[in-house]
C-alpha cells in the first residue's frame, strides 16, 4: 500500500476536503470551476462537480505504472496546484501504487501492487506512463520485451497483468499513448503504445508531458457521470483534444493578418507574431494548450515564443520533425529530401524533358507527319 495515502485517513468526505493543507472552500470551488471550464460544461455544473467530488462514495483507486519513459508526466502531475498534489493524492484519487512518489521500495512495493490489485479487482483505474518495448534484445537468454524489466517482469507482462483487471486503462503522455520518442525510427527496442501492446482500448491523455488538468478533468468526468468522456477515434477525450491548437491560438490574429516570425529574435518575434514559418505545428495538433495552458495557466510553448511541436499527436517525433520546418521531409527508399526539393526536381525534369523533346523533334521534323511533308512541299 502506498505510504502516502495510508498515512493520512480523514473520516468523512467533508472532513477530507476541509482537512487539506492550505485548501479552503474557495480554492476547492475554484478547482471545480476550472474542471467545468476544461470539460466544456456550463457554470451550473460547478456545484454538481463539487458535490460529485465531495460525495464520491469512494475515491477511485489508481494504480500508476511506469514503463519506458522519463517520468515527465508524473512530474507534471505532482506539480499541478489546481488541483494541488495533496488534493489529488489524498482526496480526489486514491493513488495506491505509484513508483515515483511512494515511499515503499523493493519487495514492499511489489506487495503493495499485488494488494492494490486484489483489493480493488475490476474497479481500479490503471494509469500507464511510458511505452512498452516489444523487441527481443540480442543475447542467449533474452526474451520478448526484455528491454524493459521491472521487478523481474518485462514491461509487457506487467502491463498485461495490471490492465487485465482494471476498470479502465488511462495512458498519460505521448509514450504510453502512441509510443513517444522511443517508438520513432529506427525504433531499436520495438516500443509501442499501451493500447497496441495489451490489445485493449485505452483512454489517452497524450502530451509531452500531458497536462494534469486534462487527466484530472477526465477523472472528474468519471466521478460526475460514472463514465469516461467522449473520445475521438484515437481515444483522446474530445473536451481536451477536439480542437486544434491553431483554432484557439492567441497568435491567430497575426496568422490571419499574414504577420510571421521569420527568425527567432527578429522584430516579429518581439511583437508576438505568428510562429507558422518557424515550423509551428499548431494547425496539425489537437490539444487544448492554447486554452488551459501549462503549469496552472502560467504559460505554454507558443506563449513563450516557440512553435508547437505537436506532442499530442501520434508519432510526432517522426511526422512533426523538422520542428523548425513547416513540412516533414519526403522519405522514400534511399532518399530523404525536403518536399520542395522533390517538387523542383519533378517540375525541372518535366521542363527539361519537354525542352529536349522540342529540340530533338525540331531537328528531325521531317520524320514526323506526312502532313508536314505536304506543307514543306
Amino acid at each position, binding site marked *: 500500500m502506498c505510504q502516502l495515502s495510508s498515512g493520512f485517513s480523514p473520516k468523512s468526505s467533508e472532513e477530507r476536503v476541509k482537512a487539506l493543507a492550505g485548501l479552503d472552500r474557495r480554492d476547492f470551488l475554484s478547482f471545480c470551476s476550472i474542471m467545468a471550464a476544461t470539460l466544456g460544461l456550463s457554470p451550473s455544473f460547478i456545484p454538481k462537480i463539487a458535490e460529485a467530488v465531495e460525495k464520491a462514495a469512494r475515491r477511485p483507486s489508481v494504480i500508476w505504472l511506469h514503463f519506458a519513459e522519463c517520468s515527465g508526466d508524473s512530474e507534471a502531475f505532482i506539480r499541478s496546484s489546481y488541483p494541488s498534489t495533496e488534493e489529488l493524492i489524498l482526496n480526489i484519487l486514491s493513488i495506491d501504487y505509484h513508483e515515483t512518489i511512494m515511499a515503499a521500495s523493493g519487495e514492499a512495493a511489489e506487495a503493495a501492487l499485488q494488494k492494490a490489485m486484489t483489493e480493488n479487482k475490476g474497479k481500479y483505474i490503471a494509469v500507464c506512463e511510458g511505452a512498452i518495448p516489444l523487441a527481443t534484445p540480442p543475447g542467449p537468454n533474452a526474451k520478448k520485451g526484455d528491454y524493459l524489466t521491472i521487478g523481474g517482469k518485462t514491461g509487457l507482462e506487467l502491463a498485461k497483468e495490471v490492465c487485465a483487471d482494471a476498470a479502465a486503462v488511462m495512458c498519460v503522455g505521448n509514450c504510453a499513448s502512441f509510443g513517444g520518442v522511443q517508438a520513432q525510427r529506427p525504433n531499436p527496442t520495438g516500443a509501442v503504445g499501451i493500447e497496441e501492446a495489451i490489445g485493449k482500448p485505452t483512454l489517452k491523455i497524450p502530451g509531452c508531458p500531458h497536462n494534469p488538468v486534462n487527466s484530472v478533468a477526465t477523472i472528474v468526468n468519471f466521478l460526475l457521470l460514472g463514465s469516461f468522456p*467522449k473520445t*475521438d*477515434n*484515437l481515444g483522446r477525450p*474530445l473536451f481536451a483534444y*477536439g*480542437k*486544434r491548437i491553431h*483554432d484557439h491560438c492567441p497568435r491567430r*490574429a*497575426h*496568422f*490571419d*493578418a*499574414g*504577420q*510571421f516570425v*521569420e527568425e527567432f529574435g527578429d522584430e*516579429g518575434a518581439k511583437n508576438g507574431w505568428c510562429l*507558422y*514559418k518557424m515550423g509551428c*505545428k499548431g*494547425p*496539425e*495538433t*489537437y490539444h487544448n494548450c492554447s486554452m488551459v495552458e501549462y503549469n496552472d495557466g502560467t504559460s505554454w510553448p507558443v506563449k513563450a515564443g516557440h512553435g508547437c511541436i*505537436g506532442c499530442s*499527436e*501520434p*508519432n*510526432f517525433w517522426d*511526422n*512533426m520533425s523538422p520542428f523548425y520546418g*513547416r*513540412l*516533414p521531409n*519526403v522519405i522514400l527508399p534511399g532518399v530523404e529530401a525536403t*518536399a520542395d526539393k*522533390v*517538387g*523542383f526536381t*519533378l*517540375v525541372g*525534369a*518535366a521542363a527539361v*524533358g*519537354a525542352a529536349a*523533346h*522540342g529540340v530533338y*523533334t525540331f531537328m*528531325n*521534323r521531317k*520524320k*514526323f*507527319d*506526312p*502532313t*508536314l511533308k*505536304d*506543307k514543306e512541299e
Partner: protein
Amino acid sequence: MTAGAIRHPGEIYLVVRTRSILACVIHWVLFCSVVTLAVTGAYIAWPSYYFGKGEAYATFTMADIRYYHFLAATFMMTSLLVRFYLAFTESCHKDIKQFLPTPRNIKNAVQLAYHFATGRGKHPHYRFVNPLGGLGIFLISASLFIMVCTGFLMYLPAETPGTIWHSWAFSIAHSLGGLQIVRLIHHVVMYVIIALVLIHVYMQIWKNSVYTESDISSIIAGYKLFPLRQIGHFADYYGIKLREKPPSTEEMDSASEPVPAREPPG
C-alpha cells in the same frame, strides 16, 4: 459532324465539332481555378510579410488569401464534378472511355508516345482525345482529386468536434499518418500537377505546330480544322463518311484559285 468548309488563304479546311461549348468552358474554368489555387497556395506555403504590413486588426492578408483559395477550390471541384458527369453524356460524346487507363488505351498511348518521341511509325489520328493525352488528363484529374481530398482533410478540423464531417476527416487524416502528412501530400501533389500541366501544354503546342490538327482551337472554340487536301488521309482515321470524293492533291495544286466556300443551305 461536318459543320462546313471555310476559306482560308491558300487552304480549305473542314470544320469538325470536337467538343461541346460547355466542355470548353469547363476546361478554362478549371484552368483559371487551378492557377488561382497554385498562386494562393504558394502564398499559404511561403507567406511573405510584404503583404501583411500594418496592425493585425487592420490587415487580413492570410485570411483573405485562404478565402480565395477556398473559393477557387469550390470552382475547381464543381467544374471537375460537372465534367465528370458530362463524360458519361452525349454532350461530351461519352468520352469517359478515352480517359480511363484501360489496357487498350495504355497500349495505344505507348505506341503514340513512341511515335512522338522518335517520329518512327505511323501517326494514328484521333478525332477527340488521343490515348496519351487522355492518360495525362486522367493523371491530372486524379491529382486534382487527391488535392480536393487532402484539402478537405485540412479544412474540416476547424469544424465542431464530434460532427460527422469532423470525425470522418479526423479518422482519414490519422489513418494517413496525421495532418502533417496530409499537408505534405497536398504540397507535393501540387508539384506533380504543375509538372503534368507543363507537359500537357507543351504537347498541345507541339502537336499543333507539327501536325495540322488545330488542337488548341479545339479547346477554345470546340472545333478542329482539317485541311481539305488531306481530308482523305484524315477521314480514314476519323471514320468520317464523305458525301463526295474529296479533290486529290494534284487537283488542288493544279487549280489556280482556291475552291470557293460552299453556300450555306437555304
